[in-house]
């Protein structure tokens, strides 16, 4: 059965959260590759992943971060931040 954009967004959110638990950061590109590889048969393509990332970031569930490259992460208080 074909996956919807919301479903893939949920999968992406879970993947980012799991990666973050083990101290890994995912780039949008890596996340997209991961999703397309896992759910290609269910109609998931780059375009859908791009739209899902946009929704996740626009809703504030994920944020972009920069550490020598751009990553997607769950919002958190960053270590470098001064109060």
């Amino acid at each position: 059965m074909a996956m919807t954009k919301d479903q893939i967004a949920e999968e992406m959110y879970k993947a980012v959260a799991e990666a973050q638990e083990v101290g890994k950061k995912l780039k949008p590109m890596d996340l997209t590759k991961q999703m397309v590889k896992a759910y290609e048969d269910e109609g998931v393509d780059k375009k859908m992943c791009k739209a899902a990332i946009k929704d996740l970031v626009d809703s504030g569930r994920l944020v972009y971060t920069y550490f020598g490259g751009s990553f997607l992460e769950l919002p958190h208080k960053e270590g470098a931040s001064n109060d």
Partner: protein
Amino acid sequence: MPKEYKTPKLDDLEKGPWPSFVKEIKQAAKNNEMSNDLLAVLERSYDERIGHWKHGGIVGVMGYGGGVIGRYIDIPDEYPNISHFHTMRINQPAGWFYTSEALRSICDIWEKHGSGLTNMHGSTGDIVLLGTTTDELEPTFQDLAHVGFDLGGSGSDVRTPSCCVGEARCEWACYDTMGVCYETTMRYQDELHRPAFPYKWKFKFAGCPNDCVAAKARADISVVGTWRDAIKVDDAEVATYYDNGMDIFNDVVLNCPARCMKFDHESKKLEINNADCRRCMHCINAMPKALRPGDDKGATILIGAKAPIIEGALLSSVLIPFLKMEDEEEREAWYDIMEEIQDIWCEEGKNRERIGEFIQRVGMANFLEAVGVEPIPEMVAYPRDNPYIFFEQDEEEE
């Protein structure tokens, strides 16, 4: 009243005939605590020879992944006013044309929300607003949006496209750089604000081979104006240059990289073998009244330049020798190739690998095959220097 710091080393930088950034920061420091503390930290860094800034992080505006560069000081207790000192990059107008009103609006917004310090412009071309706190990012963004400005690029995204002034002020422009730069900026809005690439991607548009935006040396995609017919020669003006004492043979003919010119002292005529001309602009720059680019104008698309950050510097290679820029269909075909290139780079590129480095790693021949562009002699940057030449099976049979 801001606290007064002693800054003998910075004071030294104000001496001499050149404008000094110290003078400007001091000016801003009269009314702004952030700029005042910035002076103190800079003086301290010169004393200790240590930088006190931490870079990167999660700061940004809602929905965007570029345009804000996070900076924090590592000694916030001593300099609380610059505990946060984030930079905002703002998309500049094509060709850097402003009205005074627009400039005043930007400065007013920045004095309200930030340090008041600006850098007009950053090396990519953006308006750079230096120093604000995390809480002020969103209000600054909103205020800028109300006066028609948007954030530019940063991180692994399409960086703010930039162009020379082109046809707006320059007689050598071979296409409408500002128009194509604007068109590209609008087409790439998503990629500009939402980083999705292995690393940064820069577009730069130069109207002629003089390349006033230095595209060939630093842009991933350089669009450089050129022409494919003959250079236009005004014989009477050539003779006038000669009569006025110009050494045409030594200063023009011998400096031609293609050696495609002849000058006859008797007839005072300049002859150009246009088939060999490399469109370098040297002769045109030397005799602007006598020589002009031809009428069949367009652009050469080059790929793969970068300044040295992670690896060394790269100059770009020719991808498309000539594109008629006013032809919408040809431009569409170029955008399609760009998409193809970005897809392959996203698929196969390593983290923090620019497109030029990617091409070096996989080889130009493999890269061209993957993006579906036919190799042609103009793409050869320099002759091969190894004796092993591999032919495809079908070429051997031929």
